[in-house]
């Protein structure tokens, strides 16, 4: 039986970064992949965010044929079916307030997983890791109760003090280790997508750098468009509507719902303008958690990426999280092996560091972020919010239909009229604000309170209530 220092199950971005990190540190690494080449099994609609450029120097070399930089994010708000026409659209370039240069330059780069996963796996191989393809793990080796290697389908065994499970949402290692039997239906979303081919010149002319677009509307819970150099990906039925528990409850068919919403006239006009042709149908589950899972390691085993349930709670972005957790797990594996202790207690530092890392911070306000998508998927609320945005925009900036001063004067009462609706949105953002800026906000409140006292205001009782809530949201 061959022995390694580390075995990584799954050559997606998480597994390959783990293998690369360990191999660069001098460990002997076995990287196992069940498909014929990395990325073959991965539904795309994939866009890598600038966080990967910030955190991984090797990403600076990334230059793949399918890459298209996204410098314009677009959100379309459609009218209810059967019209499903454009009612309101927001589009924006990157903000100059972001904290690192790439984030001020672009949002994401769209590319095919087929290309990206192979590129990262090649980095791992070049660093010295052994990549074994078409190798399905069906069992775990155990030594004194700890995970100590893997068993392949054919019976072949490999030993290592630590195994990293980077084997995706339906992680075999998570299940075999007993960390998780399966996700609950309210923890995963079922995403379907149509991948289209479109000539590069038309993509350049029509889509250009509007590489990520989302479609909302009554009954459309956030379908998404991701653009590549010579094609695009239309996925859905939106993050909100594709929570498995919700689909179960209402017996909506995700595939049917996506196919129906692809009939929206703006989508069809875009596809015709691009000369697009359907190229592939894909379907995949994604973990969608409102807080960071904590049951992600045991003696000799760490889960990373989707296997650990790390996609963030707003868009379910997961590749950067997989890479980040993969690197961290490899670093922890090396430390613990050097210390000669790969017990669950020793590997617990993986969870601790991950919770404090940017990956963990993405889960701050997780429950509220999920609620935001629920609002956008709710037919009534979604419609009201859209029409409020239309009213504000038209009356403040656009109307040539009525005297301008009268239109502008209409805006403030409109906001007041829609206070209950705006409170729905505030209920999402305020707890998040309190969580990250609690001290500062309480400082402001104290200052205002002091000022009110000086002025002899009557606000006393209201502020006293505020004091009671100062324990914070958690």
């Amino acid at each position: 039986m061959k022995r390694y220092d580390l075995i990584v199950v799954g050559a997606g971005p998480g597994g390959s970064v783990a293998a690369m990190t360990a191999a660069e540190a001098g460990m002997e690494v076995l990287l196992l992949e069940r498909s014929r080449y990395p990325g073959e099994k991965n539904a795309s609609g994939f866009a890598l965010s600038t966080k990967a450029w910030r955190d991984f120097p090797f990403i600076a070399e990334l230059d793949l044929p399918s890459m298209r930089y996204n410098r314009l994010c677009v959100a379309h708000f459609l009218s209810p079916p059967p019209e499903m026409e454009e009612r309101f659209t927001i589009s924006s370039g990157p903000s100059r307030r972001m904290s690192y240069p790439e984030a001020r330059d672009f949002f994401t780069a769209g590319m095919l997983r087929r290309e990206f996963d192979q590129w990262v796996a090649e980095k791992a191989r070049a660093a010295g890791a052994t990549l074994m393809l078409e190798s399905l793990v069906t069992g775990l080796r155990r030594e004194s109760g700890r995970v100590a290697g893997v068993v392949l389908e054919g019976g072949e065994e490999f030993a290592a003090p630590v195994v990293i499970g980077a084997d995706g949402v339906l992680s075999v290692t998570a299940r075999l280790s007993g960390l998780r039997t399966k996700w609950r239906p309210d923890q995963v979303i079922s995403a379907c997508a149509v991948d289209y081919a479109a000539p590069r010149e038309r993509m350049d002319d029509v889509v250009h750098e509007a590489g990520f677009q989302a479609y909302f509307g009554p009954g459309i819970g956030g379908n998404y468009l991701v653009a590549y150099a010579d094609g695009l990906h239309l996925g859905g039925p939106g993050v909100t509507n594709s929570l498995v528990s919700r689909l179960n409850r209402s017996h909506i068919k995700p595939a049917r719902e996506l196919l129906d919403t692809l009939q929206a006239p703006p989508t069809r006009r875009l596809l015709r303008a691009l000369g697009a042709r359907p190229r592939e149908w894909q379907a995949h589950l994604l973990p969608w958690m409102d807080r960071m899972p904590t049951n992600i390691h045991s003696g000799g085993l760490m889960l990373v990426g989707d296997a650990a349930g790390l996609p963030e709670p707003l868009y379910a972005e997961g590749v950067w999280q997989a890479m980040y957790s993969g690197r961290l797990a490899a670093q922890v594996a090396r430390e613990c092996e050097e210390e000669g202790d790969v017990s669950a207690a020793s590997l617990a530092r993986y969870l601790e560091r991950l919770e404090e890392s940017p990956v963990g911070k993405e889960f701050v306000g997780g429950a509220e972020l999920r609620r935001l998508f629920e609002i956008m998927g709710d037919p009534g609320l979604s419609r009201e919010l859209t029409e409020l945005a239309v009213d504000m925009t038209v009356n403040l900036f656009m109307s040539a239909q009525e005297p301008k001063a009268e239109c502008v004067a209409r805006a403030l009462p409109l906001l007041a009229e829609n206070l209950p609706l705006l409170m729905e949105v505030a209920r999402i953002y305020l707890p998040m604000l309190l969580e990250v800026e609690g001290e500062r906000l309480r400082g402001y409140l104290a200052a205002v309170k002091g000022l009110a006292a000086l002025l002899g205001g009557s606000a006393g009782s209201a502020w006293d209530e505020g004091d009671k809530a100062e324990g914070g949201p958690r």
Partner: protein
Amino acid sequence: MREKGKRGGEDSRGGDELAVDRFALVEVIPSGRDFVFLDAERCTGCGNCVAICPMDLWRMRGGRAELAEGYREVCVECGSCFIACEAGAVDFTYPPGGTGVAYRYA
């Protein structure tokens, strides 16, 4: 290997160039081994699997779920049926290494 485009029409809408035929747009390298398992005794007939399958491979018959016989040639291994079945009647593993769904973008 089953070639793309051999079946068709099922999802055609308006019969135009944008019609999406799921079955024609999926490529699967078949294996001789089962990887989705139904324990009919535990099935409560709730229909979750029928609703969730993106390839419509489940149907209800006599109040119980039934998996299409040829599922191994079209299943995209999403595992939705496994997660959606709250009765624990569906189990999902993976097809053998090197087989199953292949996304080629071609």
